[in-house]
């Protein structure tokens, strides 16, 4: 079958609505009689709530209700559960509105519902809360100290869970007999996801049918419906419809079940009116689940041949005040299992301690565990290469998993299905002109200019996920994906997917694949997503799963359509189904091209069923539930070139090059766009972004004035290409590409900056490399040299 659309850089079908201002985001909607909500949030990281007096707020004109946590608990509303459990994990209750204590700045203490948002916000300031501030703890390692204030009374030591993977004795033995070892203390900075669309939720309750509808900014509406129905509110699952319309970016932050969704649903029934809430950005900063926040001791051992023999990692992973939906999975299976990277390291051990703190919850943010693993591993590799006096690229090359080693079993559970790392590395080195770059770097250094080169290789495990496997590891959800392909009598095709597109262009890319499978025009295919009322089921989009998992389900459903179409064609053409071929958009008898039926002919007859096989059901639609056999393993090489100004400490990105391998590329425009954006987010972590808390748990970078996102002039045009190593276990050989840029670029940029700073004797700095931090490091180093 010739592909007409697969691989083509088609313009996106979603774009006309977005470029003309006719997209439909949750906050754009209003319903007749709609009320609006504002939250009363704790200004303290830790406080007893002694009394809530809403009397003044309730007399404010236009106020409809002030809702407290006690009221919701009395009404039978439960706390919000986490979706991943480890043995021995502590899961203290997480009520939508806290009842006894505030546990982080932004914790909801009461909700005001009013005729308008302005009135609700005015009245929220009139709710008098009598707080008794308590000592708070923000840093994970501080929370583990004896006598640290407990976040939850029933977890007095703040330890949510501990986790480990790997053979500790073998690792310790490898270190004991190592030729050289290196050790780094690393802080992986806490990030705020900052999708450009703030979260919003709109709930409607229909009294006549006792049905709820929730429009919300979500990456996975079915997960919300399941959690709300089965665990939190006890709404029968078929009486709750969750719709995620146009969603303005997610990056993980819109996976989770948030308190505000529960509050608007409760209020909509209580008032019998639709209720909407939309976050202000300052609320997003303290309530959208954050990312990263690790304190790590990382060590690497090598033998005298420069082969890595062991990696040992001990991490404190800050969970924040409560566990959100996937939080326990992120610093464990998505992190420790990735520590082999692209290397043949035989012995790896990773231990994680996850404390509660009085901070915003931490969960998956683009890459989720894998950027943290890649960062520490690639930092260790660069530092070790320097210790050995080797070029860091050659040290990597010596340790890469060779192409004939696949499937490759790592010592940390994963089995990589396919890969060709050295060829990918070579392509990137050639494109960037690595040897010339190193020469230029040396020449410029003589002129007092400090260029740094960070060249890293990486792997990710994505395409979540084999359900039985993740179930055995603690997931409280399946991770298969569903598809329904429905052909209409006119030959037009609706495709329903359980994944969700919030910027990834599925409406275009998935239609390209379906059009090729059915050999019909791409404009005859429409993708429907984001509505529990329309698709069979689904687990949503995260973990770069939409193409490898969701699209695989679509392809297999579409192939069922083709098989049935052949039977109908055989009947119409008075031939055996085995003799029907599907070519050039037609179903024809093999060797008799003038005996043919079009897709339209078949679609129509499937619905008329006038001249039809006796043993075949009418209609033309198919469902497929696809459970992947393994993760998929995209990989690549990223190279960053930076210049550090020693007088100001400013880091300037000069070049950025990536060669990614996500298997066959469906739409290069879209796939490359995913890489570009991912790179910018990873660069943001390396150079600009950090959620800074003071000792009292107050966030100091809680808005865009203080928290720096990458702007247009922080970036350069990215040089980008692909290698193609297909995945051997899904129908199209495709792998995910949504997170690769973020997983790779933090490490590439970090290594580039450290490479530039090496002449000053600086071995390691923690991110972000702000001008002040870099200047102080250089200045300290120069003073030290002067004193010598």
């Amino acid at each position, binding site marked *: 079958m010739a592909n007409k659309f697969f691989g083509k850089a088609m313009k996106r079908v979603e774009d006309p609505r977005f470029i003309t201002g006719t997209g439909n985001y949750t906050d754009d909607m209003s319903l007749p009689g709609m009320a609006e909500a504002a939250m009363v949030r704790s200004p303290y990281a830790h406080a007893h709530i002694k009394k809530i007096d809403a009397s003044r707020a309730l007399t404010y004109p236009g106020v409809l209700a002030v809702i407290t946590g006690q009221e919701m608990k009395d009404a039978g509303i439960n706390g919000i559960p986490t979706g991943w459990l480890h043995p021995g994990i502590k899961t203290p209750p997480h009520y939508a509105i806290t009842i006894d204590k505030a546990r982080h700045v932004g914790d909801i203490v009461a909700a005001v519902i009013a005729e308008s948002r302005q009135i609700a916000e005015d009245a929220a300031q009139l709710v008098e809360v009598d707080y008794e501030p308590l000592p708070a703890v923000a840093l994970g390692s501080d929370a583990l100290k004896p006598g640290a204030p407990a976040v939850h009374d029933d977890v007095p030591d703040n330890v949510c869970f501990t986790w480990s993977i790997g053979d500790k004795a073998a690792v310790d033995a490898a270190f004991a007999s190592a030729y050289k070892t290196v050790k780094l203390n690393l802080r992986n900075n806490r990030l705020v996801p900052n999708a*450009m669309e703030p979260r919003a939720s709109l709930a409607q309750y229909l009294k006549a049918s006792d049905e709820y509808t929730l429009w919300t900014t979500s990456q996975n509406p079915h997960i919300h419906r399941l959690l709300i129905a089965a665990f939190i509110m006890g709404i029968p699952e078929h009486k709750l419809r969750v719709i995620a319309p146009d969603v303005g970016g997610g990056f993980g932050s819109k996976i989770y079940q948030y308190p505000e969704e529960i509050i608007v649903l409760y209020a909509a029934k209580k008032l019998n009116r639709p209720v909407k809430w939309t976050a202000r950005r300052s609320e997003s900063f303290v309530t959208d689940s954050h990312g990263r926040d690790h304190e790590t001791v990382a060590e690497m051992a090598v033998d005298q041949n420069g082969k890595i023999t062991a990696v040992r990692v001990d991490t404190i992973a800050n969970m924040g005040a409560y566990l959100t939906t996937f939080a326990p999975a992120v610093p464990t299976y998505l992190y420790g299992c990735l520590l082999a990277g692209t290397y043949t390291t035989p012995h790896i051990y990773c231990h994680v301690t996850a404390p509660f703190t009085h901070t915003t919850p931490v969960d998956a943010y683009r890459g989720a565990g894998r950027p943290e693993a890649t960062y520490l591993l690639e930092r260790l590799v660069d530092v070790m290469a320097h210790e050995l006096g080797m070029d860091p690229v050659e040290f990597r090359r010596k340790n890469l998993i060779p192409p004939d080693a696949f499937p490759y079993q790592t010592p940390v559970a994963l089995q990589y299905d396919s890969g060709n790392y050295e060829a990918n590395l070579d392509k990137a080195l050639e494109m960037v002109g690595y040897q010339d770059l190193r020469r230029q770097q040396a020449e410029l250094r003589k002129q007092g200019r400090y260029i740094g080169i960070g060249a890293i290789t990486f792997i990710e495990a994505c395409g979540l996920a084999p359900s039985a496997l993740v179930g055995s590891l603690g997931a409280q959800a399946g991770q298969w994906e569903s598809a329904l392909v429905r052909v209409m009598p006119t030959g037009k095709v609706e495709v329903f997917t359980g994944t969700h597109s919030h910027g990834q262009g599925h409406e275009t890319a998935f239609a390209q694949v379906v059009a090729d499978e059915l050999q019909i025009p791409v404009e005859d295919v429409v993708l429907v997503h984001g509505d529990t009322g329309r698709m069979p089921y689904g687990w949503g989009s995260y973990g770069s799963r939409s193409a490898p998992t969701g699209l695989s389900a679509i392809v297999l459903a579409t192939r069922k359509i083709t098989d049935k179409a052949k039977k109908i064609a055989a009947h119409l053409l008075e031939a055996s189904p085995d003799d029907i071929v599907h070519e050039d958009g037609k179903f024809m008898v093999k060797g008799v091209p003038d005996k043919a039926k079009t897709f339209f002919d078949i679609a129509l007859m499937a619905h008329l069923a006038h001249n039809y096989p006796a043993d075949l059901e009418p209609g033309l639609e198919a469902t497929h539930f696809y459970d992947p056999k393994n993760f998929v393993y995209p990989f690549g090489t990223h190279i960053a070139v930076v210049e550090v100004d020693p007088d100001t400490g400013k880091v300037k990105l000069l070049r950025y090059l990536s060669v990614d391998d996500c298997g066959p590329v469906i739409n290069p425009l879209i796939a490359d766009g995913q890489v570009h954006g991912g790179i*910018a987010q990873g660069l943001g972590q390396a150079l600009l972004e950090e959620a800074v808390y003071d000792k009292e748990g107050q966030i100091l970078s809680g808005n865009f004035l203080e928290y720096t996102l990458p702007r247009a002039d922080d970036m350069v045009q990215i040089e980008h290409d692909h290698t193609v190593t297909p995945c051997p276990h899904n129908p199209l050989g495709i792998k995910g590409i949504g997170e690769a840029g973020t997983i790779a670029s933090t490490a590439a940029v970090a290594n580039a900056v450290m490479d530039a700073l090496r002449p000053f004797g600086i071995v390691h700095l923690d991110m972000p490399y702000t001008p002040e931090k870099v200047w102080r490091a250089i200045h300290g180093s120069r003073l030290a040299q002067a004193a010598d």
Partner: protein
Amino acid sequence: MADKVHIKVVVNGVERHSEVEPRLLLVHYLRETLGLTGTHVGCDTSQCGACTVHVDGQAVKSCTMFAVQADGSSVTTIEGLGSPGSLHPVQEGFWEMHGLQCGFCTPGMIMATVDLLNKNPNPSEAEIRHALEGNYCRCTGYHNIVRAVQYAADKMAGKVGVAADD
């Protein structure tokens, strides 16, 4: 709540008369009073630029102005720039070059770009990046936004005169 104030604003070529609270921001006037939801709110500190519109031909973050300050002015929003059948060259550029992903920053980004090209029809890459400093995008890494602006500049240069939106 203060007494409401009468304002007259020409929005996308249509004269609108409204009674508004003095504290009502222009962006909320556009979105909530007039139902023009193409203009977005991405922050509360005037950093993100998602709410960029044109007031009397100048790009303005509509969260930095009260609706009453727009009294007597002419405002163009993304809805007034072009339609799917007749796109403005900047809208076309964003579509052709994949200058958007989630689409949330896009209306503001497009309005800021139109303003840039009105003032500087042939900007360098550095000038484009500098001019769009006030508009955040979290999806694209700005790579294809730069290409979209270059496409639009080329397209507009090929025309007689520069397409004006207001």
